[in-house]
């Protein structure tokens, strides 16, 4: 949680609660007296706006926690209650509003992340529960601090508010410009949040969006300017890109641009269009930001007021229409912006030969459908395989290798349309391959952070990417690691491999997974575990133990690589039910506890709990094995087999 990367995760965390707002806006408007006039529907929508601070506290706590668990959300909620009502108890004039939610959400993960993975084998009392209790106590400190200093901050905010109000339409113009200029970094969420949810006060609610829905006639200043741009301007730019595409690619480009223009028009999600020219033609993007500012200026000068619950698309426009002021004027203004955007883009793309979608040089790339590239140069067999797989799975696999694989990946997050990836070194990210895999854009934020603009379906790609990225099926991973064979290769003699877990042995050929049963991972044996304590079967160095904690690899002094793979298809559990007691690089002795696993979780959610013990480098033919068939085995005590150097 440092610097830019931390702020970006904050922005991303806000997505979950913000996604509820359209529901709130919909209910609020549908139930309102000028639409259907059903009070209980209106009240239901308002409840979400009223307790937005609580939802922010939970959303931020989830996003900044290590595991995204519900316990983090609950802890955030409790810290919020304590902070919010504690400071009111100290000084009843204090009103922290949405800030209490922010502070609670930001502080909760500090302790939570420290405890959440401790003592994980008990579902009724574990580290997460301890964290909730400790956070409640720690919240007292927050109450004391903010009970004293918030009155001063409140004064400061009041004067900032006064300054923003007095800046009027100019302020709205500056905001519109700054908002668009921050899009490439993803930091616009942080700027938006203050103006939309924290600024100004009307009947006890704060923020431009909240006040609009509470009926404040002055609200909407910082939202109205987006309607002409998002509903009309950017679709105009999309049309220009279609007409400027190469003839043979025009049809594909049209399909793709229609989908992104429709998304912008209806929902006000504009990133897919913006990223198609943001990096190709930076000056054009600046023009776009300036035009957004101008739209904010004009709409405000004309006294138009309109707000949205999510973004400035047609859905919000229609719902809030009767509630706005002179909202119809946005349509003629929008049509003007449509032609301005169309004209500028149509002219500039030709003039500067900008490689917008459908204009790129023939390098075997073409757009197909909703922004997904098909790699025409790829061998036919590859695409045949792709058909049988989920398209998101295919994308994720391509991103995975383009990002530099497990060695380079640190953390995978996502928000509206982009993957937010933390890597060890952004220089190792192959931008061209990422784009070829279907990305609309790639942004290298700094040395560690990179963002890939995927589209609104990013969540599914992220889920797949997370599943792949967890060091699974050891083989490939240990292969790529430089193996210190010089050091160990000369070793001679033999060593005993003990059972890593108590249970009953099964021949490897009977494991219901061809990867193991056909010996693809190497020679070995399987154990049906009786309990969840997994120990090191032999002394050596832990060379593999990923975040998913479902498998561990040990490099022995003899140079053998022993992999213990707990259960089958357990990579999909993403670490749930597993607790690691050592970390990669540690030296362990035979019988030392490595992982404790909750077998009930594995039995319920994975294919099987059968644990395979294989020698992943047995293919090198350097070792000979003496198998014993012990039947019942005891962890760290019963010998499974003896290996010696040939």
């Amino acid at each position, binding site marked *: 949680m440092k610097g830019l990367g931390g702020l970006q995760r904050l922005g991303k965390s806000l*997505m*979950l609660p913000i*996604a*509820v707002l*359209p*529901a*709130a806006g919909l*209910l609020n408007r549908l139930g309102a007296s000028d639409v259907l006039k059903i*009070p*209980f529907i209106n*009240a*239901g929508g*308002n*409840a*979400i706006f*009223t*307790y937005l601070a609580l*939802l922010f506290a*939970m959303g931020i*706590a*989830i996003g900044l*926690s290590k595991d*995204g*668990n*519900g316990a*983090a*959300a*609950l802890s955030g*909620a409790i810290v919020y*209650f*304590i902070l919010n*009502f*504690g*400071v009111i*108890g*100290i000084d009843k004039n204090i009103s922290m509003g949405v800030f209490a939610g922010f502070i609670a959400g930001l502080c909760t993960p500090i302790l939570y992340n420290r405890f959440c993975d401790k003592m994980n084998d008990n*579902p*009724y*009392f574990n580290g997460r*529960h301890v964290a*909730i*209790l400790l956070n*409640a*106590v720690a919240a007292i400190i927050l109450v*004391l601090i903010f009970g004293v200093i918030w009155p001063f901050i409140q004064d400061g905010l009041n004067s900032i508010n006064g300054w923003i109000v007095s800046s009027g339409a100019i302020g709205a113009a500056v905001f519109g410009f700054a908002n668009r200029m921050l899009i490439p970094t993803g930091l616009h969420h942080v700027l938006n949040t203050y103006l939309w949810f924290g600024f100004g006060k009307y009947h006890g609610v704060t923020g431009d969006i909240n006040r609009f829905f509470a009926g404040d006639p002055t609200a909407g200043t910082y939202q109205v300017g987006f309607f002409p741009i998002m509903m009309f301007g950017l679709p105009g730019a999309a049309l220009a890109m279609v007409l400027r595409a190469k003839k043979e690619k025009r049809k594909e480009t049209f399909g793709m641009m229609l*989908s992104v223009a429709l*998304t912008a028009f209806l*929902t006000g*999600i504009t990133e897919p269009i913006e990223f198609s020219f943001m990096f190709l033609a930076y000056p054009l993007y600046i023009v776009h930001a300036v035009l957004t500012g101008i739209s904010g200026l004009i709409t405000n000068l004309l006294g138009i007021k309109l707000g949205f619950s999510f973004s400035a698309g047609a859905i919000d426009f229609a719902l809030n229409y009767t509630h706005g002021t002179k909202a119809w004027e946005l349509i003629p203004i929008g049509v003007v912006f449509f032609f301005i955007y169309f004209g500028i883009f149509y002219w500039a793309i030709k003039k500067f030969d900008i490689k917008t979608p459908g204009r790129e040089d023939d390098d075997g790339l073409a757009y197909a459908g*909703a922004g997904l590239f098909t790699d025409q140069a790829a061998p036919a067999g590859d695409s045949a395989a792709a058909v049988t797989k989920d398209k998101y799975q295919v994308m994720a696999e391509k991103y995975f290798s383009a990002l530099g694989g497990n060695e380079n990946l640190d953390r995978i997050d996502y928000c*509206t*349309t982009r993957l937010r990836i933390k890597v060890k070194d952004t220089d190792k990210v192959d931008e061209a391959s990422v784009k070829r895999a279907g990305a609309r854009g790639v942004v290298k934020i700094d040395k560690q952070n990179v963002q890939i603009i995927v589209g*609104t*379906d990013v*969540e*599914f790609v992220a*889920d797949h990417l997370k599943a792949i990225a967890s060091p699974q099926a050891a083989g490939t991973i240990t292969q790529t690691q430089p193996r210190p064979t010089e050091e160990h290769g000369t070793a001679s003699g033999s060593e005993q491999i003990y059972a890593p877990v108590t249970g009953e042995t099964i021949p490897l050929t009977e494991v219901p997974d061809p990867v193991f049963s056909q010996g693809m991972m190497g020679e070995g044996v399987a154990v049906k575990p009786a309990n969840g304590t997994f120990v090191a079967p032999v002394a050596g160095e832990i060379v593999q133990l990923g975040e998913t904690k479902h498998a561990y690899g040990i490099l022995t002094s003899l140079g053998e690589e022993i992999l213990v793979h707990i259960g089958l298809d357990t990579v999909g559990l993403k670490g*749930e039910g597993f607790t690691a007691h050592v970390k990669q690089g540690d030296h362990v002795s035979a019988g030392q506890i490595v992982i404790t696993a909750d077998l009930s979780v594995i039995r*319920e*959610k994975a294919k099987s709990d059968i644990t395979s013990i294989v020698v992943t480098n047995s293919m090198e033919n350097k070792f000979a094995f003496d198998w014993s068939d012990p039947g019942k085995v005891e962890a760290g005590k019963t010998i499974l087999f003896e290996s010696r150097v040939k």
Partner: protein
Amino acid sequence: MHQDHLFKRLAAGLVYPVLALIIYALFLLLSLTGFGGFSGVANTFGYFLPLILSVGLAVGIAHDKSGAAALAGCVGYLVFAASFTSIVNAKLAFDVTMPVKIGATLSGTMTFLFICACLTGIVAGWLYNKFYNIHLPDWLAFFGGRRFVPIITSVYGLFLGAFIAQIVLAHIK
């Protein structure tokens, strides 16, 4: 595949309100010092217990204990309570710390709300398991997946509130 251990998952969810009770007790104790910061929390925390119950059950039932389920449990209860409040007493603005009166006593009101919170929490958890990987059309894809769960829960909460206020409550009376 999540059916077998429903009771176990419910029990795991119930641990959270128990923790909240411990925290509530701590603040009640601390409020004896007379310091406003403590009594401010002690006076209001009890009203949030049904909400925490709803969140806890939603998390417990959710197959992967995701935070999105927690948020759904929270949204579900809030929308339920607001919709319920507006029907029982149209003049009262919804506020968790000022529950609308049902029957003569406050404790009766709270008991009723606890039962309702069980309902909203279970519904939220069930909806999470049903919808956590829903795919929506391209232009709505942002709202697909886990983000869809709090949205759909708000709709259920709304009608659950109306149903209980209009029909169930009327019959009890």
